[in-house]
């Protein structure tokens, strides 16, 4: 049995889905360039201590990677509707391996999305140490775990017709409230609320890149809590779905 080969074909399928592939990277890239280029000389945007090109780079990278992770749900929903999930359930591929492949594929898309934004950021003058780039990327990879669970949950709850708005709306809301699109400032309810969202901590990874500290304990706890809750939801949704099919 060779699950590597299975994963390879799964990656191949994702890359061949050209429209999906190009749009997932193109959309955050274009908005980033539109927003960050006019502000390329802003060294401290809204008191965050981060330059505008760096802040928006991580903001739009967060948006792109969140979408890439949640998109695994759309593929699950499509395979459920096609009856392909049943076909796999009568094969030796375990549900665990199936989901692992979906998450791996999502991570590959997320990393490409990240890379595209990094290159764009560098072209606008973002210059970090090697340790800064790597530390930031590491935190983002960890911060994306709850989004993988979210994708799996949505994939088992929704049909291919209805999952689009659920995914798009969910990610946009989390992005908006987490400071993905613009800094939230330091006062009031929104910055307070944001600290309990996984999207907020994705954006905060940018501080490591700028030579600052990684997440405080609160960040790790919030990400861990979202991971636990959404994983439980994913397992529940999976069981409910396959019990009925």
């Amino acid at each position, binding site marked *: *049995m*060779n*699950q590597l*080969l*299975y994963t390879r*074909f799964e990656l*191949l*399928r*994702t890359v*061949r*889905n050209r429209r999906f592939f190009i749009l997932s990277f193109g959309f955050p890239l274009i908005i980033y360039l539109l927003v960050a280029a006019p502000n390329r000389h802003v060294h401290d945007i809204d008191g965050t201590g981060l330059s505008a090109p760096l802040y928006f780079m991580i903001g739009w990278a967060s948006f792109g990677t969140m979408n890439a992770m949640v998109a695994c749900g759309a593929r699950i929903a*499509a*395979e459920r509707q*096609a*009856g*392909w999930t*049943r*076909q796999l*359930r*009568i*094969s*030796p*591929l*375990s549900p665990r391996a199936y989901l692992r492949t979906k998450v791996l594929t999502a991570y590959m898309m997320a990393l490409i999305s990240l890379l595209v934004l990094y290159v764009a950021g560098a072209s606008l003058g973002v210059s970090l140490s090697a340790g800064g780039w790597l530390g930031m990327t590491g935190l983002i990879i960890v911060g994306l775990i709850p989004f993988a669970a979210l994708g799996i949950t949505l994939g088992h709850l929704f049909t291919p017709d209805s999952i689009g708005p659920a995914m798009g709306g969910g990610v946009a809301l989390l992005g908006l409230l987490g400071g993905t699109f613009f800094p939230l400032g330091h006062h009031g309810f929104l910055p307070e609320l944001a600290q309990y969202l996984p999207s907020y901590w994705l954006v905060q990874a940018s501080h490591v890149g700028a030579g600052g500290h990684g997440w405080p304990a609160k960040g790790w706890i919030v990400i861990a809590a979202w991971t636990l809750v959404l994983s439980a939801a994913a397992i529940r949704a999976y069981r409910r779905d396959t*019990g009925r*099919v």
Partner: protein
Amino acid sequence: MSERIELRGLEKSFRGPQGPIRAVRGVDVGIARGETVALLGPNGAGKSTTIDMLLGLLAPDAGSVSVFGRAPQQAIARGAIGAMLQTGGLIRDLSVRELVEMIASLYPKPLAVAEVLELTGIDGIAAQRTQKLSGGQTQRVRFALALVSNPELLVLDEPTVALDVEGRRDFWTTMREFAARGKTVLFATHYLEEADAYADRAVLMANGRIVADGPTNEIKAMVGSRTIRATLPGAELAALRALPGVSGAERRGEAIVLRCADSDAAILALLAAHPQARDIEIAAAGLEQAFLELTSEDPAGEAEAQAAAKALGA
């Protein structure tokens, strides 16, 4: 390791708008390794539900399933079962060959992909993307996916529904070749002809129960029979039953109805013995009608069905 597939006391109900629907009500079947068995029955008989339970896709309300001594999930994890389900499409963005390779990679001892492509007649479309196939081509690819796993047990749920006449013939030829390798095959169908031509044994299902189980020629004689109806006052039923080709006789007023395994022999014998017979009608008792007779709610019919089932060793 057990050499048999055993379904014992299987029951399954579904929730319906007017209360529970008892899709399967006590199914017992044993299949020996190497047998080719047809699960025959009209739509709604419970064939697919039974197959879903055999494959572990559905948990039975009661009863047990054992595939060569293992629970279905264990047998599947070992790659012992290949199946072509009644419904289901393919995933897109892969070529036919890649899709077959992808599935083959999941099994411990798959058949060679090239061999399977040829066997199922899809080597000509191996490079095509799966989303560009016709219905018949899709069905052939699904068959290839079931075969490439090189299973001990091949399960086919109404496999020829989307195929044209030529496609059907090719399909069954391939199935026979595969079965000849000592494999066990179970296929569901509602065509008596398919069961008769391609299975060693047929299990008849109706209303969630098994109503007969035996070699296909016996099943065919039983349900593929013709009836002769004639006006023949005063004939002895016992004598009519003894005529060649006649398997049953009953009286309806002045008329008699003979159920015939061989209606040609029966009509000659009937006219020889009773030249006064009038208003003769010979009709094919279709599968549906045969099922109705076997499963009719009146006690006589029920008893007859049970007797028939018993006679065939069910």
